[in-house]
């Protein structure tokens, strides 16, 4: 079992494939993650933030007929870090988003958790909610 490294961490999953989404969700929940949402398409960010804060967004790049880059930018505007989990090569990530962590599919659960943990511990706690409007 993976240690609950990500206990209490609020994570949003955007992955268009149901089975992969289920797989990741199960994996993260086992690591103690609070799943804020698990969506096949780009969700309404404000709607989610009304319910919960988001520590990290785990994004598939290809969402059927759209990509998640614009959503990543919107997240960045709110100060929310994102991690890409995708079958594409890292070169497809636009330059303005290359600060984001990148995980190649198919990924080991441990690789995903490690990456998310890294991002989570790097994120400055003070400003962690700076751009987020968390409503209780």
């Amino acid at each position, binding site marked *: 079992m993976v240690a609950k490294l990500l206990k209490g961490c609020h994570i949003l999953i955007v992955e268009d494939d149901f089975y992969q989404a289920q797989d990741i969700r199960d994996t993260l929940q086992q690591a103690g993650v609070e799943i804020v949402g698990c969506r096949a398409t780009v969700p309404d960010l404000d709607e989610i933030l009304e319910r919960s804060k988001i520590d990290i967004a785990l994004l598939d790049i290809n969402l*059927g007929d759209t990509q998640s880059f614009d959503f990543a930018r919107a997240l960045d505007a709110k100060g929310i870090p994102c991690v890409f989990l995708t079958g594409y090569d890292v070169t497809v990530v636009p330059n303005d988003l290359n600060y984001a962590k990148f995980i190649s599919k198919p*990924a080991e659960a441990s690789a995903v958790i490690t990456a998310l943990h890294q991002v989570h511990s790097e994120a400055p706690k003070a400003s962690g909610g700076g751009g987020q409007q968390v409503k209780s």
Partner: protein
Amino acid sequence: MLTLANLRCCFTQQRGPGDCNDQISRMKDIHPHNAIVAALPQAACLLERVSAEGEGAKDWRYRANNTAMQEMLGVGDLTGQLLRDRFPDRADEWHDNLLRAAQAQRPVLLRPYTDQNGNVYEMTLSPVGGGDTQLVLALIHDVTEAERKRKERAQAEARFKTLFDAIDEGLCVVEIRFDEAGEAADYKFVDCNRAFEAQSGLADAKGRWMREFEPDLEPEWFAIYGEVAATGKPIRFELESQAMGRWFDVYAFSAGPVGSNLVAILFEDTSERKATENALRESESRLTSLINVSSDVVYQMSADWTELRELYGKGLLLPGADPTNWIDDHVPADDRPALEAAVAECLANNTPFDEEIRVNRADGTVGWLRSRAVPVLDDAGKVREWFGMATDITESKATEAELASGAEMLRVATEIGGVGVWDWDVVTEQIRWSDAHFELLGYEVNEIAASLSAFRDRVHKDDFEAVESALEHARETRQEYVCDFRVVHPGGEVHWISARGQYLYNADGKPVRMLGAMIDTTERRRQEEWQKLLVEELQHRVRNLISMIRGMARQSASTHRTLESYVDHLIGRLQAMGRTQAMLTRSPGANVDLSSIMREELLACAAPEKAYRIEGPPVQLSPQLAEVLTLAIHELATNSVKYGALGDKGYIKISWTIIAKESTNHLALRWQETGVSAVTKPSRVGFGRQLIEERIPYELQGTGSLTIHDTGVLAEMSFPLVDGSSVLETGIEGIERQRGNASLGASEEVR
């Protein structure tokens, strides 16, 4: 007074002293006067005045005359006759002279007298005796011949003088001075004609010595004239005197007997002619050299071109057999008519002949000559002959043909290859473009004049700097110019151009010209980009598929009690996915027919046809819908075989309808089993239920439910019929659809 001594003198002029003494001794015997007259060898007579007064005062009588006189005048003895009787016309004139002579007591010489026959006489009248005797001796000389000679001589001399001065050549008579050693040392100008000064440049030379004028005159001049004086042999020569700065054409001849040292020199200053001659000779020599080096054949044609008079072929052409049939000897048969026509035209207009003709060469091959000929005119302006020169251009002709062929090949190659070629004169800024070059820049061919600015106008503004610096770099480093840049066509269409070029430099190292070529690489770049994209996409799909199967395998795990069951089901699901893939591949880019999916899945689990019924309008499913639905039907059918209608004597009714909701069509599908005897209720949430109740809402934004009734399973699904792609698609079209409008990352812009 005539004395014996005087007479003696007269005699001595004609005869020797012995004869004179003899005559005188004979005169003593007869009347002295008559005897003297008779003795005189020349014509003589003695006249005595008739009377000092009265009628005969102006008349004279012949006292004596000699036979010489009678013979001279053709008369008999005149003794005793009167002068006036004899010569009535001249009596008065002679009387005056006789009287003057008698009174003067000294001889009087009369002017020559010409008689009616043209004979000329000269008379000397001498008084004879003394006192008042008026006796005169007349000595008569027939000087007719002498006078004629004198006149002739005078005339000749006058003519000579006129001639002397009239001739244009310089003419002088010089007297040579020889030194003690017998060498001619100098000469003095005795006489010079009028032209002398102009021809010699020596003024007032008469009476002066040559060395006074030219102390440094070359010794050979003296030697030559000395030789003429010494031998009397004339000489003609042309010689330059550097001291005098002139060339002379000289004819020198003796002007007197040998020993007189007189030499006449007839000469002409030929400096100018000599200079002209030299110039002409040089010019001719140059012309000859030029003709020799510049032409391989030199020829002369008769005025009408019927005869080849001379032919210097330098071994290139063989001398022909028949000069009047030169055309057959030298020109291949096929070319003769054209050549004859060209010749005829030149003859008609007297214009120079200038043709490229084929000729039979000495080595047996046929070569090419560039032949030019001009008419040579005689003094009357008529064509005397034609002079021609020809150059062997066989090689250049061959090169020309090769070049033309090469140029044509290049043109064809560049046109077919769409290669734009430019030739830029860096100095004059003149530039030439091939047709393709215009087109590559989005111009119509020759729509505008090719120019550097016309090129710059079309270069994409973002690439302008790169192009300029690449040009500069190539120019400075002498390396090849290589540049890839975009051009914008008038419609805004962007094309990628790949250009390569090379500067050419003059001897001073200055760039004078630049040649280059360019091609449109837009399509190639698009293909490369597309290929890159395909690889990316393939990689993505493989990874995604593995990831998806892994997820599916994990989700399946919890629903099976035994490993065998798990493996069977997992393989069944993978096979269903395989069928979806096959179906999507069969009609790539197109949607999939719903009833086909149904039948195929039922067939896959060996469901008998009578055990089910399918009802519904034709519906086309997008790949994504097909993927999900195929797996859903697979689960339902598999479960039915295992637990339900297909495993029993039950019946399945599959039906669907289209429902319009909020401008989107929704598919409502229903799977209903009936007549199942014993329904086994699965205790846990199975894979199929999860698929229908969770996956459909998650992925397709639809609804799904699976319920187990007493009669069998009822599954209901509803979802919007929207476009969507599947990870199982392998056709290009799916990728295009998915990636076409919103391409990824680096492929946002072609670079």
